[in-house]
């Protein structure tokens, strides 16, 4: 008796040790495989080359532009004309002869105050930048390029100079002098002209003044100036957001409407025959396999760019997913309710309407709502491909590579839109679960 227990104990111990050993080895094997895979990816994706390729200057521009804006003060060195433009765009140009208060326009002696005692004086031909703690930098464009004089000593890092170009980059702003033009950038926090452009009478007024003007019957003018803002295009952006949500809405709910009857054909307990069921399943699999990308390309050839194309692409793709999921849901229903309805002599349609649909509606609706939320995200991407909605605006702003404040504005809007849809669909889904609890139980 004693003997047996001892050996079996030993056996058990051995068994346990081996088991743990095997698991340990297994864990390490998995870790090794993951590590090996990442090493492979490291070389396959050429991470080292990427490090050299990536441009930190681009990253800096992007980050700086997202929270600040710059005003360009440009002098044409031939004519001596000075213009002042927000973000260098014609839409943001100050009318000639006017200037913000930090620029003192005077013939042949315009003084640009960059703040913190940095001043730039645009003389007849020359330009003088007074950098506190360093000294005066003098430059003059000439036929051969740019002549420049610096204070004694070694050139600091913030100055880069060549025969044709002088650039001074300080914390306060940037001065570039070339043969043709002298350009000064001054940076400010925020998004300028977000509410009103310079040509609007409401530009520069405080919130209180705007409100009191709105009270005095100018509300519609104020709104229209804001809505038609040429710099930020609020009207187009609002339409784009609406288009994106519309694509997701039509796509998701349209797909649900198409998929519901088809799902009955693909569910084992409703299919008229096994071959129909098999065929339906393969069709769903095929649609899911073809994928949104290919449908998007195919449909944009037929319908051209726009939100309807995107909506139809989502509709077709999701019909496959919904068909599969709906038929699985239908296969899992409780047959008793259907039999109960049948026992009263109901026809098939009535059986589906009163025996099946009440059971599956909450489940299907919550699936559909979940997809609706995730399709708002897909609609952004599909919009970028078909050319509709906020995705298009985002890619356009990206490709021009200058309006980064608009890019960050769109990104913020997209994230807010998705979060709002997430919240909305979550609310509806929890309401459905609660509602169905009262209904069926």
């Amino acid at each position, binding site marked *: 008796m004693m003997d047996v227990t001892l050996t079996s104990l030993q056996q058990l111990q051995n068994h346990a040790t081996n088991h743990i050993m095997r698991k340990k080895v297994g864990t390490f094997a998995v870790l090794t495989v993951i590590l090996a895979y990442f090493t492979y*990816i490291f070389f396959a994706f050429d991470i080292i080359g990427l490090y050299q390729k990536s441009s930190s200057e681009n990253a800096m521009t992007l980050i700086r532009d997202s929270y600040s804006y710059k005003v360009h003060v440009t002098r044409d060195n031939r004519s001596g004309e000075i213009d002042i433009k927000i973000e260098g765009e014609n839409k943001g140009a100050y009318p000639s002869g006017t200037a913000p208060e930090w620029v003192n326009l005077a013939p042949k002696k315009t003084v640009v105050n960059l703040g913190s005692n940095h001043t730039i004086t645009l003389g007849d031909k020359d330009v003088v930048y007074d950098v506190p703690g360093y000294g005066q930098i003098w430059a003059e464009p000439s036929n051969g390029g740019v002549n420049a004089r610096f204070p004694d000593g070694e050139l600091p890092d913030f100055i880069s100079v060549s025969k044709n170009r002088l650039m001074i980059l300080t914390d306060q702003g940037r001065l570039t002098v070339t043969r043709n033009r002298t350009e000064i950038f001054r940076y400010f926090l925020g998004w300028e002209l977000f509410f009103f452009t310079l040509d609007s009478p409401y530009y520069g007024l405080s919130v209180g003044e705007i409100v009191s003007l709105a009270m005095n019957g100018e509300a519609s003018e104020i709104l229209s100036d804001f809505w038609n803002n040429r710099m930020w295009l609020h009207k187009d952006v609002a339409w784009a957001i609406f288009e994106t949500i*519309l694509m997701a809405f039509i796509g998701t709910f349209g797909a649900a409407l198409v998929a519901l009857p088809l799902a009955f054909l693909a569910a084992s307990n409703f299919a008229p025959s096994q071959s129909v069921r098999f065929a339906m399943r393969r069709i769903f699999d095929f649609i899911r396999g073809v994928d949104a990308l290919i449908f998007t390309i*195919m449909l944009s050839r037929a319908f051209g760019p726009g939100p309807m194309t995107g909506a139809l692409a989502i509709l077709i793709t999701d019909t496959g997913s919904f068909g599969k999921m709906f038929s699985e849901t239908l296969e899992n229903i409780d047959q008793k309710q259907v039999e109960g309805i049948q026992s009263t002599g109901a026809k098939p349609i009535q059986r589906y309407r009163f025996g099946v649909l009440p059971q599956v509606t909450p489940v299907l609706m919550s699936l559909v709502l979940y997809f609706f939320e995730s399709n708002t995200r897909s609609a952004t991407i599909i919009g970028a491909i078909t050319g509709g909605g906020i995705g298009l605006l985002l890619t356009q702003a990206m490709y021009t590579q200058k309006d980064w404040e608009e890019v960050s504005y769109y990104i913020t809007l997209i994230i807010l839109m998705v979060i709002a849809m997430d919240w909305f669909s979550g609310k509806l889904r929890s309401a459905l679960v609660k509602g169905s609890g009262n209904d069926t139980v």
Partner: protein
Amino acid sequence: MTSNGVRYSTPFFYGYNMRNDRTPATVEKIQDSYVAMMLRKRSYGAILLLIFVSMMISGFKVAQDRNAGSFWDGIHRIFDFPAGVISEAFEKASELPAHTATYFPALLETINIAAASTLIGAISGMIMSMLATRGLAKWPALIPVFRRLLDLMRAVPEIVIALVLIFVMGGGPVPAMIAIAFHTTGALGKMFSEVNENASLKPVEGLASVGANWTQRMLLAVVPQVAPNYISYALMRFEINIRASAILGFVGAGGIGYELKNAMSWGQGRYDQAAAIFLMLFAAIVLFDQISSKYRSRLTHGRQSSEVIA
């Protein structure tokens, strides 16, 4: 057999009770109010349905108005493009194997983007989900912070990050990988934290009592419990990510999507290359869908062998 008894006794009892406390008038009242309720419910349903249908129709009209081509103009052209591609593919069927070989590296890149981003997303999602689950979190006070962070990561569409990173890093697979991994972290983190909530805390407490630190407790007490569910969710995400990485390629992030865009831009006469890419993409998606759903059903419906748990 008992149903017989019930059938006989029920009317008797009910009838007896009703006759005593409830007059036929009340029965009628109940019936009336029931019918009224049903009618109300039906009319609500009908109104909702009407609103929904009119929203669908007017929404579709708006979408059509803002579209370049209208629905009825385009519907008969819908198969022109696939037909053109297919006929060209048949004409030049002999060249398809060569195209497949040419574009295989691009397909591999797309799959690699999906796999690497799923792995990275699963690992970071695992860590974040543990930090966001009550009972497991290292810093319980920060649970809401990590939850919101996961929500935010989930909300950012991949294309946003991919486009920004393409600008900073230049084109190629890495921007897509980072973008998808970011979104995957949020999506998997949320699912993982739901799984974590069902994990038993006893092994965690046991390990804590012998002085294990947080990492050890998580790796040795929680992960073995939740690994099958984690892997199942991660596989599902992998399927989604293959599609996402193909689509991101189309906006410039490398892989088969990028090649597809190029092949398409050459236009008619060279659709055989596009056909090869379509076929490869379709095959890859179906293949990985099949593998993943096989493996997932094995993970969730028993046959949970020890070799699976990693």
